C-alpha cells in the first residue's frame, strides 16, 4: 500500500485517499477553440515516468492537493502545491 504525504495530515495510507488523476491545465475560456476544449476534457498526461497528480484526502482532512509520483516505480515526491484544488 502506498503512503500519500498529505500536506496537512502527513503521510497516510492510500486507502484514505481518492486518486483524482494527472493535473490538467484549464484552458482560457475566452480563447480556447474546440481542439483545446477536447484536450482539456479528454486528454491527460500518461507518460512512463514522473506525473503531477491530484489526490483528495477524502477520509481525512478533505483537501485536494498535488503530488509528484512515478508511474513505473511508485516513488512519491513531496506534496508541492498546498492550495486546495491547485
Amino acid at each position, binding site marked *: 500500500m502506498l503512503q500519500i504525504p498529505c500536506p496537512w495530515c502527513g503521510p497516510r495510507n492510500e486507502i484514505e485517499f*481518492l486518486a483524482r488523476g*494527472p493535473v490538467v491545465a484549464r484552458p482560457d475560456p475566452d480563447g480556447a477553440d474546440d481542439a483545446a476544449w477536447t484536450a482539456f476534457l*479528454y486528454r491527460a498526461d*500518461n507518460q512512463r515516468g514522473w506525473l503531477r497528480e491530484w489526490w483528495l484526502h477524502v477520509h481525512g482532512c478533505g483537501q485536494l492537493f498535488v503530488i509528484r509520483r512515478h508511474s513505473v516505480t511508485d516513488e512519491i515526491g513531496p506534496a508541492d502545491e498546498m492550495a486546495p484544488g491547485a
Partner: protein
Amino acid sequence: MGESVPFKKRFSAAALFGAGLRGQRNWPALWRSPEPRKTYQVLIIGGGGHGLATAYHLARDWGIRDVAVIEKGWIGGGNTGRNTTVVRSNYYYPASARFYQRSVEMYQGLSDALNFNIMFSQRGIVTLAFSPHELNLMARQVNAMQLNGIAAEILTRDDIARLLPHCDLSATARFPCVGGFLHASGGTARHDAVAWGYARAADTLGVDILQNVEVLGFEQMGGRVCAVQTNAGRIGAEKVAIAVAGNSTVVAGLAGIDLPVRSQTLQAFVSEPLKPVLDIVVMSGLHHTYVSQSDKGELVIGGDSDTMTSYAQRGSFATIERTTTGLLELFPAFSRVRLMRQWGGTVDLTPDRSPIIDRTSLDGLYISTGWGTGGFKAIPAGGAALAHFIAHDAADEYSSAFTFDRFRRGALLDEGAASGVAH
C-alpha cells in the same frame, strides 16, 4: 470472405491419440521464429490478441500476407495472457451491443476456424443486485439487451439461490441480495489458446511473428509513415498499426500522436484448485468483484482497476483487500481457500470506456486502443475491424462508432456507466 487455413498438421482427437502412441513427441512448433525482413507491406505493433487477430484477418480476409507482428516480449504476455477471460455482450448502447455480440458469435466458431481449442464455455453470467434501484437499472439494461437481440433475463432471489447454492443470500448478509440478471450466452475462454491459436493460423498464412522486438520510433516521409525503428534495426512498411493496450500513449507518442487514453493497473487473482463449486460467472458491482471457476478448478477472481496511472504491472494491496472482502461477503465458504497467484496488467482506458479503432493523423498509421478492462472478449471482432481499416482505409460496419471523432463531437459511447465492474 476468407477461406479456411491450410495447416500443415491439423489438431484433432485422432492426431492426439496417434501422437500419444509415440509419446507425444514430434509436434511441430506452432509458429516459426523468422529473422525480421527489411520491409513488409503491413507491420502490426503488439503481439497480444488484438495484434495477432488483426494479422490473421489481414491474411485470411483480404489476402494481405506480407505482414509482421512485432512484439517486445512474448506473444500473449501483455493483458491477453493476464486477463480473467470473461466473454460477454451485455452492453447497453446499440453500437457496442452489435460489436460485442459479433465478437461472441465469432468466439463460438473460433476453435474450428483456428483448429485450436480455445475452450470457449458459454456457461452464463449472473450479475447480482442489492437494492431495488440497482434492480431497476438492471431491468433497463435487460430491456436494452433484448431490444438489441441479446438474450437476457431478470432473476429473482429464488432463481439465484438455485444457480448459486454457495452464495450468501440471507437477509442478514451485509448487503442482502434482491435479484439480478442472467446473460446466458456469456462465459469464459482460454486466454493463452486465443493468442496461440491466432498466431499459429497467421503464421500458416505467411505472417512473420517477431518476438523480442521492441518498437522504439517511427520514420516518416512526406507526412506518411514509412518504417519503424526497433532494437533489431529498421523495418520498412507501407502501413503500420498500433495494438499495444496499456502502452498506447507511449508508442503513439513516438509518432507525436496524443491519445485520450490513460494507463492503469487491473489486477486478478487465482486460488488453489478446488473441486467444481461454481459453474457460472458471478459479478457484483456493489462488491467490486467477479469470479468464475476455471477448468483446472481455480477460482479466477477480478475486481475494479486501481485508480492511479501506472505501468508497474503490479497492483495496490488496497485493491486486493477490497476485492477479496467482497468475494467473501458473497461466498463465505471461500474464506479458507488460499490464493495462489496475483498479478496486474496495464489497461488502456478511454474517458467513455469504449474502444478506438481508427487511422491517426500520420498517414498510413492506424491504431486499436482503449480496450481497457474488457478487450479480451473483443479480440475476434476487434482484429477483424482493424484489419478492415488497414485494408480499406475505412471502418467496417461493426466498428464505425469507435473513432476519435466522438470526443471532439461529444458523442460519447459511455459504457463505463452502463457496465459497472464487469470485465
